[in-house]
């Protein structure tokens, strides 16, 4: 319902109507060959209205010519209106962005030092490579990379997320976006995109038809529509000498009416709106694409490379079981593990504390211990263990090899059964964490990756759509295989490195597949650049964001799947309305051809299968249907055809039935109804 109200918002509709009229400018119309033909037709009938015999031949009445002119003009205006409404929705969003993106003064630095010489310039003068300083309260003037400083930044203008985020130099959080605001501290930023090429500009460009680049499919479709228009032009123009030969001259207004009814005005009018609306749907999901081509490619993607962590599994492993060794009881192990994890703030650590509490009601009560008798040992890269020392007890937990080495060091023996347990857990795709107390192994904590709820169903849908899902993980093959099986992905890549990822993408591409992936780190950049559809997380590094052709402002790795669906929906909508538009023509022929010749050749009455009242009412009914179908289909063009993931065959059957068969039948009914309505009014026009 929310979208519905957005489509028909007064704030959008009223200016759109005005812009629809402004767009009648022929210099603008010539961009759309189909509608340009209609506009020329309107001009010709206008001339006929002024002087009905201006082109010789049979002269129709002034009023008839005037009515034809008005319907033709309305057809063009409806088309422009569709485009304007689509733009309007994007514009509303763009306007909000522009507000934060207004011209500001920028403190340009001569050197990347906080104290270096400052120069105040207008933000529009910033160029790529310039360095500037932003401090508390400043709006960041352009996209860039932080080269010094740490600051909290309000990015709500582009993400809609009100919580501030940290941006700092180095690492994965060094990218800043133009239009966002510094809440505290300062940053020194190097400009990575000149004004007009930044994020927000690109976003605005996607939803404004004047600046929008046509996508490859759209160009192909426009070419086909242009050829069809030529065919119909040929059909209509040649009809004049044919009719003259049969001594049944035609009036020019009717020939133009036939032409306009036949050329694919419906898709011609809505094509641009469909494209804009597709981009708009993407933006509504907080994804910014660098080009329409990328969105279209998303619909074609055959292989999705998905990072295990964050996309397929929840970010972290969780403890699921305690397995005691030797004489230790399960409860004893749980308690020791809990104590060792109390100071461990990692999600794994917290999950151990939680599991111990759930299984044995242990609370990890350390308050009773004396001050000083308690000493937490934090995790270190050297020891690869963490733990606690208290009252002579020394508890350690860590990766199996680290703990075994630790026990060996103390000259203690490792129980034989430990290896069996470790293997079992590994085979199950889990990660074992060994717990030892005073050099004695108590047992093993079974950590496990948790697959996100609902993800398996998504993968089943993907498979139906013919998309192969590949899980990418740094885990060992055993663990990876288990998770892959649990999540239901088609394939996986274990122990992935940036190089192997890149190679995988190239291999798939060599096999003719289009690859989509998400990434955030700098080392993802080569793979992102190679992938056909590459979505970078907004939280990602600047190199990653530059290598990608889409950026997800929500930084949600699962978004890739939605992007694919939006891409498909865009293509389907375009195809559906094209099919509908062409299927419509059959009925229009049966309305107009008999009407054109019925007066002289009564025998053609047999073709008037709709039993339309008079020749003029038949022609006008077909024209009116042709015009009003455009505004009727605007909501469909903007919302997109309902898309349910399924196989190509099922999709085709369903859409052919609705838009193909429906497209043949609908105008027969529509034209007949309009004829019933207008026949009494126009009478003997």
């Amino acid at each position: 319902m929310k979208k519905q109200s957005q489509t028909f918002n007064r704030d959008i509709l009223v200016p759109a109507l005005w812009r629809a009229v402004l767009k009648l400018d022929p210099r603008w119309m010539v961009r759309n060959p189909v509608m340009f033909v209609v506009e020329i037709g309107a001009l010709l009938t206008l001339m006929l209205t002024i002087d009905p015999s201006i082109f010789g031949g049979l002269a129709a009445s002034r009023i008839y010519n005037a009515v034809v002119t008005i319907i033709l003009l309305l057809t063009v205006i409806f088309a422009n209106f569709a485009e304007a409404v689509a733009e309007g929705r994007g514009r509303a969003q763009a306007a909000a962005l522009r507000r934060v993106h207004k011209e500001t003064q920028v403190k340009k630095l001569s050197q990347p030092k906080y104290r270096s010489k400052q120069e105040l310039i207008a933000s529009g003068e910033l160029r790529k490579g310039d360095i500037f300083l932003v401090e508390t309260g400043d709006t960041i003037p352009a996209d860039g990379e932080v080269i010094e400083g740490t600051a909290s930044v309000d990015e709500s203008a582009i993400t809609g997320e009100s919580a501030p985020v940290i941006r700092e130099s180095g690492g994965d959080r060094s990218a800043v976006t133009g239009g966002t605001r510094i809440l505290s501290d300062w940053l020194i930023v190097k400009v990575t995109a000149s004004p007009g090429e930044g994020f927000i500009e690109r976003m605005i460009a996607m939803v404004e038809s004047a600046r929008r680049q046509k996508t490859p499919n759209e160009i192909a479709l426009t070419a086909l529509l242009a050829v069809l228009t030529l065919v119909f032009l040929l059909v209509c123009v040649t009809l004049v000498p044919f009719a003259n030969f049969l001594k049944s001259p035609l009036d020019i207004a009717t020939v133009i009416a036939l032409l306009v009814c036949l050329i694919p005005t419906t898709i011609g009018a809505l094509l641009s709106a469909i494209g804009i609306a597709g981009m708009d749907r993407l933006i509504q999901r907080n994804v910014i694409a660098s080009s329409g081509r990328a969105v279209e490619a998303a619909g074609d993607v055959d292989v999705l490379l998905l990072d295990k962590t964050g996309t397929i599994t929840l970010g972290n492993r969780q403890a699921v079981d305690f397995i005691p060794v030797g004489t230790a009881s399960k409860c004893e192990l749980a308690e020791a593990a809990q104590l060792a994890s109390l100071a461990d703030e990692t999600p794994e650590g917290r999950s151990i504390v939680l599991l111990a509490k759930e299984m044995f009601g242990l609370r990890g009560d350390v308050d009773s211990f004396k001050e000083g008798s308690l000493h937490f040992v934090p995790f270190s890269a050297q020891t690869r263990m963490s733990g606690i020392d208290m009252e002579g007890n020394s508890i350690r937990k860590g990766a199996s090899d680290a703990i075994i080495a630790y026990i060996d060091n103390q000259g203690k023996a490792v129980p034989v059964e430990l290896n069996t347990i470790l293997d079992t857990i590994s085979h199950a795709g889990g990660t074992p964490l060994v717990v030892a107390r005073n050099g004695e192994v108590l047992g093993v904590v079974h950590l496990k990756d948790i697959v996100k709820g609902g993800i398996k169903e998504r993968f089943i849908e993907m498979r139906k759509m013919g998309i192969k899902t590949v899980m990418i993980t740094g885990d060992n093959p055993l663990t990876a295989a288990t998770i892959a099986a649990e999540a239901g992905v088609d394939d996986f890549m274990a122990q992935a490195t940036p190089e192997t990822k890149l190679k995988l993408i190239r291999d798939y591409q060599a096999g003719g597949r289009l690859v989509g992936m998400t990434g955030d780190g700098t080392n993802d950049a080569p793979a992102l650049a190679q992938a056909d559809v590459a979505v970078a997380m907004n939280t990602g590094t600047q190199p990653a964001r530059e290598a990608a052709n889409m950026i997800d402002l929500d930084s949600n790795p699962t978004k890739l799947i939605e992007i694919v669906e939006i891409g498909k929906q865009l293509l389907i909508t375009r195809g559906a309305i094209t099919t509908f538009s062409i299927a419509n023509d059959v009925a229009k022929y049966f309305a107009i051809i008999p009407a054109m010749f019925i007066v002289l050749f009564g025998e053609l009455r047999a073709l008037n299968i709709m039993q339309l009242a008079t020749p003029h009412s038949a022609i006008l009914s077909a024209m009116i249907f042709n015009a009003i179908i455009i505004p009727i289909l605007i909501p469909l063009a903007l919302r997109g055809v309902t898309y349910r993931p399924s196989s190509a065959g099922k999709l085709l059957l369903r859409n052919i039935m609705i838009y193909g068969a429906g497209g043949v039948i609908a105008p027969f009914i529509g034209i007949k109804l309009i004829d019933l309505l207008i026949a009494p009014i126009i009478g003997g026009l």
Partner: protein
Amino acid sequence: MVIDILQWVIFWGVLLALVFPVGSYMAKVFTGGRTWFDPVMDPIDNFIYKLSGIDPKKQQRWPAYVKAMLIVNGVMFVLMFLVLELQTVLPLNPDHLGFVDPWLAFNTVSSFITNTNWQSYGGESTLSYFSQMFAIIFPMFTSAATGLACGMAFIRGLGGSVDMGNFYADLTRAITRIMLPIALVAGVVLVVLGVPSTFAGTQTVNTLNGPLAPAAVSPASQPSAEATSTPAPAPTATSQGQQNIARGLVAPLVSIKHAGTNGGGWFNANSSHPFENPNPITNMIENLLMALLPASLLYTLGIMLGRKKQAWIFFGVMAAFFLIFLVVAYAGEIQGNPLLTKVGVDSTQGNMEGKELRLGQGETALFVTSTTAFTTGSVDAMHDSLTPLASITPLSQMMLNMVFGGKGVGFINMIMFVILTVFLVGLMVGRTPEFLGKRIQVYEVKLASISFLMHPLLILGFMAITFALQLDLSSISNPGFHGLTQVLYAFTSASANNGSAFAGLNANTPWWNFSLGVVILLGRYISIVLMLALAGSLAAKKAVPVTSGTLQTDTGLFAGVLFVTIVIINLLSFFPALALGPLAEHFAMLAGKVF
């Protein structure tokens, strides 16, 4: 009626039985496999290559292939033109036929080099035996082989090979391995069944009846002769009790005329002439001969692409059109002409004007359908005198130009429609449309749609010019709607490279010879070049693997969608012309109107 249907069933049964062996034989011929003719034909082939200095193994990409095709066709064009123009000084002219008008020669050469076989002339009264041999029978082989070669190059492109073969080798093999053997066997069989084959000239006989009584002479009205305006004609042989029976090398011509889907007859009356088609069996043989190669080619396509199911889907769509149009043709004729029924003609025989009694309505409807489906253009009944409803069959099939079609060219057109269909409806599965694993993008869509545009452009455009500028409109022999249909039929037949005619139209005038010749040439070469370029482009593309998200083009669903799309986009192009021609005439006829 039952017998007529039985004839059709037998025709289809025999044809289907032949499709498998002939289709796989042709696949062998064009993929370099061994065949039974090799021991005899290899030396001949090598002799041809050696003598002409051609390396048959040199692979050609599509531009080179097209260039070779155009040059060879151009050279043959000149040779044929010279043969016709020098007819009076060349040998083998027993009936001393005169000089061939250059416009007529241009039209005839254009027509025969392109496998069209439109004839603005009456064969027995215009061409010497030498001309029939070297300007008619010769191109009947080479034009068919050219189409076949281009079809093979196209298939290789679709199969993903940018090397499209060698035109010279393809042409040679098409002639020596396919055309010559079939034509030889069929030619001899036709002689046995009564088709003449002789170098002897016209045979003059004294008729049994003797001279006709002057009052008894009641000739059927001649279309162009205005009885009132011409002076009393000189006595004819007929009225004197004599008959001059034209003969010639009929059997070899009729044989290749059908095997090569050419269609041009030795005689003016074409396959309705008792010498070209003496009985119902020769009629069936000629029918099968013209269907044989185009139908089998689909099986060849299936084998060469390794996609037999896809080939059968195309076959099914084509066969569906064929059967529908066969029924239309038959239904139109079997009821007879109601206007004649009204003046006392028994309608049980159906419409007999322009028909041969021995062939019957069933086989004649089949021939009308076959000759325009397989783009042969020979006729065993006068199409001009078909009922308007029946005339929709030849017209529509020539407009579609893909109901099997001639050799090679038919399925090339089919693929053009497949590409348009895939693009139009394929978007509805939410992917960039694909065909045979290749993405259909801007370039392919442009080539296919321009290729589609050519047919209506040539037909409607030239019709409009003819009418608007009133060029030689006196050639139109039937008034009213039918006159429009005559012009429509002529340009459709020319553009589709069919060659059949509404023969009342006197096309032997400068404008008709020129315009039809031009339409024939453009209709042939533009679409071949565009579609070979398209195949070349597809070949160079990376193949996309098939997934469940791929639009499968070898399913019944796709066949249905393809069928409907072909109907709609052609209906949109040609409905007004059909409405003002045959449809209007049909309703006029039912209303009892005459013109």
